């Protein structure tokens, strides 16, 4: 216990100390060298804490309430320790990656800046998931926004970056307001806002309050999670952050929203109504389908990944929604299965999405571009990074032998179980949702087949890609570890499902899913051995290889530009879903006067549907218009001002007279 407590304190203290260390040696690289080590140690300690407390079952509690007028408590129950472990693991890998990456990409000042705020950012996330009082939670929640924004701002400055930052901070603040409100709404029914008090009140809330709380929490957390249509900030912010930071934001920060939703849905409000679940399910469907479709249409590597994050959050929401529905229909076993599915996908997405973002970082390190149409043939040039990214792509495509499959299978399974519910609505909706999940899975497979196939395979389409080389060892290590984790979970799911079932049990006591969860751990190892065995056999086939030019219909050679580009690759699917994109296509034939003897033909096709234009812009305009109206009252004429005072006085007097 003492050890656990010590580890936990150190884990929390080190990130705070780091800026103080950096302060004296802002410019000297010697100080900066220390930071990653410290951060790594802190992460290690954090992971150790979770493991220790997990094993002993004792919760290390940090209580700073005596410092502040409001209770500030941190603790590690099952759910928290899962997320803390996730944060620590991913961050540790990211740190290893960042050392070389940041060294190569940034000047002294920027490096110091990033190394100052990275630990604080991680700390804020830890605060959020370990908080055991509303004050602590909101404290961490706001800090998370500030520090992530600081890190995003580290990566240069331009009008449209500023615009993105503005959108990010605004939406985060609005979301935070909603979350705060959802916490405060408990207040009339408790004396304080520690989680224990909230839990105590949660069971006895009047229905309308519970609904209000849940809706506000849903809005607030969905904003952070980037669920469509609240996703506006996500594809704008993640791509413009330094790659390790993008990895953390996409891999971990989004998950704090999932954490919050689980806390509210399963811990604070024990009696969900079915329609809450359907709401979450709907959000999941919309953002998973639209997310992956937008991802398909993207050409910028990191924007593509950002949109795929939206999709994966959608998948997690599908699981959560199912869990809530089962909870509402008193089917605890299936509820906990769906919850396990959602949490499993949370963990998996954290793993492979961090790999993908860091891989994108590696790509930009060597090729200095993220435009997929200029890449190609990188696998031969950077084999380690290529391999790790291949693993990540397979995982995100939900292929068996990789971890993505595990969570998708669980989600399918829970949807299938929907047929056993008493309500016909659930019987129809849940299995159909499985169909949606299947569609999303197929689209994701296509998307990432295109990504890897065009960026890493084939022949380089540009000079940048041709001259690419392998990135330094540290970066490969950082990504490699997580990729290995993906494979490990994919081959031996018990690693993941064991702990998750305990977490689910801690939230839904009566749900026992051991039997449901036992299938995959039995199947996948054997499946793997079979596949690998057959692979070995196939490799054993004696064969002579000869390198020859490819079939070119008799032409002398095919230039690399004649390969299928990512744009073209996704073309069929894009034309199938043209209704979603409403593309505006432009074909220009030069010279214009003789279209039959073109010198150059240029084709542009861009998406015209955008939530910003159709949803957010009008709202903002309305507010600004209102402000201008009010501004007009402020005529610089002192007589008018006096008039305002008199009128106020008179109207108040009249009011009093009337009310008397």
């Amino acid at each position, binding site marked *: 216990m003492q050890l656990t407590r010590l580890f936990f304190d150190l884990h929390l203290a080190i990130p705070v100390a780091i800026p103080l260390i950096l302060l004296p040696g802002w410019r000297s690289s010697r100080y900066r060298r220390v930071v990653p080590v410290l951060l790594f140690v802190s992460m290690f300690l954090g992971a150790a804490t979770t493991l220790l407390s997990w094993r002993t079952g004792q919760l290390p509690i940090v209580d700073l309430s005596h410092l502040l007028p409001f209770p500030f408590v941190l603790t590690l129950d099952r759910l928290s320790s899962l997320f803390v472990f996730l944060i620590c693991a991913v961050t540790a890998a990211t740190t290893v990656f960042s050392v070389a990456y940041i060294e190569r990409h940034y000047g002294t000042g920027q490096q110091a800046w990033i190394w100052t705020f990275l630990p604080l950012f991680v700390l804020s996330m830890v605060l959020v998931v370990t908080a055991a009082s509303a004050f602590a939670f909101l404290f961490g929640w706001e800090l998370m926004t500030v520090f992530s924004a600081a890190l995003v701002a580290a990566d240069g400055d331009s009008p449209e970056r500023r615009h993105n930052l503005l959108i990010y901070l605004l939406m985060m603040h609005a979301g935070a307001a909603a979350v705060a409100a959802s916490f405060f709404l408990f207040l009339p029914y408790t004396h304080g806002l520690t989680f224990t008090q909230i839990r105590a009140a949660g069971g006895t809330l009047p229905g309308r309050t519970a609904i209000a709380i849940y809706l506000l929490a849903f809005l607030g957390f969905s904003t952070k999670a980037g669920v469509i249509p609240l996703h506006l900030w996500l594809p704008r912010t993640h791509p413009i952050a330094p790659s390790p930071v993008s990895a953390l934001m996409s891999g971990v920060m989004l998950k704090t929203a999932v954490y919050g939703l689980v806390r509210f849905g399963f811990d604070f409000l024990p009696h969900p109504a079915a329609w809450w679940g359907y709401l979450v399910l709907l959000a999941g469907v919309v953002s998973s389908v639209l997310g992956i479709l937008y991802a398909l249409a993207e050409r910028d590597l990191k924007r593509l990944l950002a949109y795929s994050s939206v999709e994966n959050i959608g998948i997690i929401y599908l699981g959560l929604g199912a869990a809530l529905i089962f909870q509402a229909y008193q089917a605890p076993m299936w509820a906990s299965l769906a919850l396990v599915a959602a949490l499993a996908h949370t963990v998996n997405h954290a793993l492979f999405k961090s790999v993908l973002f860091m891989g994108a970082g590696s790509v930009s390190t060597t090729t200095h571009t993220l435009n997929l149409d200029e890449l190609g*043939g990188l*696998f*031969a040039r950077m084999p380690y990074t290529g391999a790790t990214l*291949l693993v990540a792509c397979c995982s995100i*495509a939900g*292929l*068996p*032998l990789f971890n993505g499959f595990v969570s*998708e*299978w669980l989600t*399918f*399974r829970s949807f*299938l179980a929907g*047929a056993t519910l008493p309500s*016909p609505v659930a*019987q*129809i909706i849940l*299995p*159909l949702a*499985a*169909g949606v999940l*299947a*569609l999303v*899975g*197929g*689209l994701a*497979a*296509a998307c990432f*087949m*295109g990504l890897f*196939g065009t960026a890493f*395979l*084939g022949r380089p389409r540009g000079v940048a890609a041709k001259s690419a080389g392998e990135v330094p060892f540290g970066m490969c290590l950082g990504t490699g570890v997580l990729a290995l984790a993906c494979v490990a979970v994919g081959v031996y799911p018990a690693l993941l499902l064991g702990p998750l079932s305990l977490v689910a049990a801690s939230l839904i006591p009566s749900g026992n899913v051991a039997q449901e969860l036992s299938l995959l751990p039995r199947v996948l190892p*054997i*499946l793997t051995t*079979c596949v690998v065995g*057959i692979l070995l056999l*196939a*490799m054993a*086939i004696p*064969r*002579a*290889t*000869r*390198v*020859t030019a*490819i*079939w070119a219909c008799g032409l002398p050679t*095919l230039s*690399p530009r004649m*390969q*299928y580009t990512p744009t*073209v*690759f*996704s*073309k*069929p*699917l894009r*034309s*199938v879903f043209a209704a979603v994109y409403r593309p505006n296509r432009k074909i220009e034939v030069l010279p214009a006067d003789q279209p039959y003897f073109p010198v150059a033909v240029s084709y542009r096709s861009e998406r015209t549907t955008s939530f910003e234009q159709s949803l957010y812009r009008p709202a903002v305009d309305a507010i600004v218009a209102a402000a201008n109206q009010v501004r007009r009252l402020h005529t610089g004429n002192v007589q008018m001002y006096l008039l305002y005072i008199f009128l106020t006085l008179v109207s108040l007097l009249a009011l009093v007279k009337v009310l008397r």
Partner: protein
Amino acid sequence: MTTAAANVLQYLLLVLGAPLLRALIARVKAVIQRRQGTNLWRPYADLLKLFRKEDLVPPDSSPLFRFAPMMLAASTFVAAALVPTVNQSALLAFAGDFIVLVYVLALGRFFMGLGALDGSSSFAGMGASREAMISALAEAPLLLGLIAVAILAGQGNIVEIVRWTLSQNFFDVSAVHAVAFAALAMVAIAETGRMPVDNPTTHLELTMIHEAMVLEYSGPSLALIEWAQAVKLTVVLSLLIGLFAPWGMAANLTLAGLALGLGAYLLKLVVLAIVIAVLESSIAKLRMYMVPEFLGIATALGALAVVFTALLRR
């Protein structure tokens, strides 16, 4: 012990006999088209020849180019171990969850696409892109159809579903089964690249899908691909048989039972082969952009099947 032996035998039968089915379809088509078809054992000869030939690899392609066919073969052969054919069991029966089956097949397809893109030929790229589209759109109807059946059977394991179907009376085939079968059949056509979605015998690049994907492959790699394709076709057909018409499948491991099961199975296969042949020689291939509509119909049917499952139980 005997069960294991029987399972191994039926697995080998499936894997080794698969090329024969393709030959059979080709032969029937030839007959219909008044051509003198090829010898039924021709595919084996081709495979042997290809295995002996050398492997031609495009310049600056990565090792993945040669790895892809192996992955395809591996996944397909594993998938073959999941479906029951003659016996009411399979080599990996316990793992025969239909979601697993679907995704194992997807694994192979994914790598095949990557291999095609690695070939850096524009035809291969085109093939890969179209294959990606079709498989992406086929995923939903496939799973919906399977889910409908699974819901009726109340379990996800294929062998279990088969057993449940056998326990039902032959005549009360529910509407769910009919609709689900329609959906799955359409998907099967798309998945195995037969007419009207794809033409396995075409040589006109612009209409090719699967053939375009494998355009750059030769020698042992091509052999693996062809073999895997054959096995996949057989697996899908056996799945249809198992789910919708398993009658006659050997329940107990007596010699007679097995013989009956084998006979029934082969018979059904032959019937299906003839149906496919007739279809392929009677209807024209769809235009590329008609395929999504085709699959859309399949999806609608699948969804319908699922809805029926809920309605029929009340």
